[in-house]
Structure formats: C-alpha cells, structure tokens
C-alpha cells in the first residue's frame, strides 16, 4: 500500500526536477535550491552526475536512474538549505 502511494506521487508529477518549481514550493531562491542540490549530489556513492527529483511534500531527494526510475532518497533539500548536512 505504502509502495503504491509512493509510485502514485511520482507519476502525478509531485517530484519535479525543475529548479523553479522546487524554489517556489519551499519559498527559496533558485540559487539556494541549486546549491542544496549540488551539495546533496556531492555525496559519493550515488551514481555520478545523476539527475534528481525532489518530493515537494517531504523535501526528500531521489536519484533518477537511466531507465527513469527513482532510487532511494539521497538527502533532504529542506535540511540542506537549512545547513543540516
């Protein structure tokens, strides 16, 4: 059930990869969002230069695989913007 809801969020486009949408949702500047995403992607161990999507409800950041599927979270954009590494 939980898994079903998770997939539904993503198919409904609640996890955009557009900086502007993420910035608007969390009331932050695009610069702050880019900086936070860059810091989250800096965590080694995740696939290199992977694209990401952000869950607009929770702020969790998911890596996007070559097949378009999302992997497990690699960080939280709200925490990163607030300096919680």
């Amino acid at each position, binding site marked *: 059930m939980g898994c079903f809801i998770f997939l539904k969020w993503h198919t409904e486009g609640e996890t955009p990869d557009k900086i502007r949408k993420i910035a608007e949702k969390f009331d932050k500047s695009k610069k702050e969002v*880019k*900086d936070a995403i*860059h810091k989250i992607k800096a*965590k080694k*161990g995740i696939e290199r230069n992977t694209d990401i999507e952000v869950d607009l409800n929770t702020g969790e950041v998911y890596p996007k695989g070559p097949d378009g599927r999302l992997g*497990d*979270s690699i960080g939280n954009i709200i925490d990163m913007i607030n300096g919680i590494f």
Partner: protein
Amino acid sequence: MSNIDWVSTSLRISSSKLTTSEISKVLNLEPLIHYKKGELMSSRNPKSQKFKENLCIYENIAKKSDDLEMHLKKIGLFIKNNENKLKELITNCEIDVYCGISYNGGQGGIVLNSEILKKLASIPIEIIFDLYFEEDEDT
C-alpha cells in the same frame, strides 16, 4: 562578460579504510562537511541510502565569491602544495574535484588552461562538473 552566476568547488576524499578524522589529520585541515560510513543520507528518512564510505568534503579551499578560474586555481594550488600528503592518502582513499557551475543562460563553457591542468594533475584524480542552466519559463 561571464554568464556564470554561481560556482562551488570541493575536494572530496572518501575511504572505507581511513576515518574522516584520520583523513583530516593527514591534511591538517578540517572538512566543511563530513559523513561516516553507514550514516543515513537523509537523517529524517530511515529508508534513505547509507554512505558506503567515510567522506570528507573540503568546500572551503576557494571562496564563494571567487570566479570559476580562481576556484580551479586555488584547488590546483592546494593539490600542488599538499602533493605528498595527498599521495599518502590516495593509497587508501579516492580523491576527486567536484565542481558545480550555474549559468544565467542556456549555454556555457569551461576553459581549463595548462597551468591549472598541470597543478590538478599532480595526483591522479578526476574532475566532475555538475552544471545548471537557466530553465525555460514555460516548463
């Protein structure tokens, strides 16, 4: 005129053998950010990925206000000045330069001159560029 509005450059050192404290001790420099092997990548999400290695991120070698060339010059100089320490670390660590660049427009380029390249190549490392471009307003 540069169309770059934001640059961030880090030296990343990861290891499954050395702790973050041991890495810092060799370099005599505290990382701005460090993570331990096994730590959750999102502390609020128990299902998030875990770090596979200890990781030090030295983001404080260049200043935020520096331009791209100065970022890479300072990282290159740091590598050159700490060549022996980094060569000691590289036997047990992976080292790379992680560079984020945000462009104001939809196009952008990077020039690495020979002086910078020589310094960066003092030790066998990779340079990774993470690029951000201005998005179309209608997307």
